[in-house]
């Protein structure tokens, strides 16, 4: 029998910031080609987890293995096929859009820099912004630019931290459509955080619930709705967040 190797495997991952435990011994694996949602209230440890998976924050303990390789020993190799986007991490505003894209394409060692940018600016419909200063782009345009940057190296695995935060409903909806296309047309595996439960429900085949640094549940949105006997994922979220956080909601 052939066991499919997960694209990402995390074992007993811990992060302590002098005193506070942000991530408290989580283990999970992600299979290739899916969109997985990482949910949880503010401060649950979602961002910290993603930053550790990208070797931007050093874990206190545990192991991370991506494409079957240990992050500690294969950082360059892994990161060349991974990418990341978050509206909280903007590209330099004092550079032109094409300068930013060219710089990152070169950093990733893209063979045909021009051709890759050409292909992606059409996919995201941002060709008209190429000669503009990045500072002049609107939030929605920046989101598309960030996603363009995130696809420059044809990643196999994409981490998105609240990609639709601060977008209006129309642009958020277009962004979701783009994410679905990225996953379908390019076969990219996506790990993704959001506070919008309807969005998670629409996009994710699987959700992992984090609470106070621990995984408290894991399953398809449908499974969780049934398991908690609620009418939608939003209610499941409230139920989990409030039950497990009894002490702090009392005061």
């Amino acid at each position, binding site marked *: 029998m052939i066991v499919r190797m997960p694209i990402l495997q995390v074992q007993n991952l811990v*992060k302590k*910031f*002098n005193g506070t435990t*942000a991530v408290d011994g989580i283990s999970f694996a992600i299979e290739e080609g899916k969109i997985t949602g990482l949910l949880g209230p503010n401060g649950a440890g979602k961002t*910290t987890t993603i*930053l550790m998976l*990208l*070797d*931007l*924050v*050093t874990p206190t303990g545990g192991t991370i293995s991506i494409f079957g390789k240990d992050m500690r020993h294969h*950082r*360059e*190799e892994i*990161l*060349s096929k*991974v*990418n*990341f986007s978050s509206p*909280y*991490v*903007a*590209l*330099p*505003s*004092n*550079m*032109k859009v094409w*300068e930013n894209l*060219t*710089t*990152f394409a*070169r*950093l*990733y*060692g893209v063979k045909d820099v021009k051709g890759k940018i050409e292909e992606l600016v059409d996919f995201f419909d941002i060709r008209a912004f190429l000669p503009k200063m990045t500072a002049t782009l609107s939030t929605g345009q920046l989101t598309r630019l960030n996603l363009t*940057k995130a696809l420059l*190296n044809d990643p196999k695995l994409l981490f998105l931290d609240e990609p639709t935060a601060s977008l209006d409903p129309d642009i958020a909806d277009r962004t979701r459509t783009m994410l679905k296309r990225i996953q379908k047309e390019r076969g990219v595996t996506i790990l993704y955080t959001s506070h919008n439960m309807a969005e998670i429900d629409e996009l994710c085949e699987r959700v992992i619930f984090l609470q106070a640094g621990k995984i408290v549940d894991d399953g398809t949105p449908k499974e969780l709705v049934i398991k908690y006997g609620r009418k939608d994922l939003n209610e499941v979220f409230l139920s989990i967040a409030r039950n497990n956080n009894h002490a702090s909601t009392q005061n």
Partner: protein
Amino acid sequence: MRLHRISALLFRHLYLYKRSVPRLMDVFFWPVIELLLWGFISLYLQKFDMGGLNIVTVLLGAIIFWDLLSQSQRAVSVAFLEDVWERNFLNIFVTPLTVGEFMVSAVLLGLVRVALVGAVMAVLAFALYHLNIFAFGFSLIPFAANLLLFGWAAGLFATAIILRYGTSAQVIAFSLLFLVQPLSAVFYPASVLPEGVRFFAYLLPSTHVFEGMRTVIATGSFPYAELGWAFLTNAICLFLSIRYFYYMFARVKEQGRLMKLD
């Protein structure tokens, strides 16, 4: 080390310099002002009898060399600060870029800036004061190279300090060398320094460079010992700065501050 990643960062800075007046002023304007200032001072001093000392050559040579050093240091520190100011660290270190490649690209930017400033100042010194710094042949080149190296070490050190204390410490990036300038015997021989201070002065590569440079200009003979000391102290400074930078970078990742650097 991958060349394409180092050059990607270098090109990124060239994009910025190309259209930024403040950045170009930093390279071209201030060195020219300094050259004019010190040129006029030395022209004035020339009127007094200095016992055969060529004051124009000594002072102008000193200021040109000093600027090479300070350009080298500032280029390295500013290359780093550009990413702090634009909060770009997460983006660049989410690529396969390594800390070593990052340092090398900063250091190469220093080299480019030093070459530009050196050329501008050499031409101006010749046009305005008939000082040909190449008249000393190749003797001054190894000393200039040491200034470049010391600028790298100081630049990386200032950068590591900013990693540790945030941009509230960025004034260090612009003033660090002025702290060592009095000890470096730029405009006067180290022998005028008080006894107790002189020992510390000789720990600095810059002191050996400026002593050596004066020997070349005044006597025409080549001070091998000074050059040796300059290389030795530089090797130590560079080693310590690079280690300190790696250490601070690892600490920043430990504390989860890469995203929050400012």
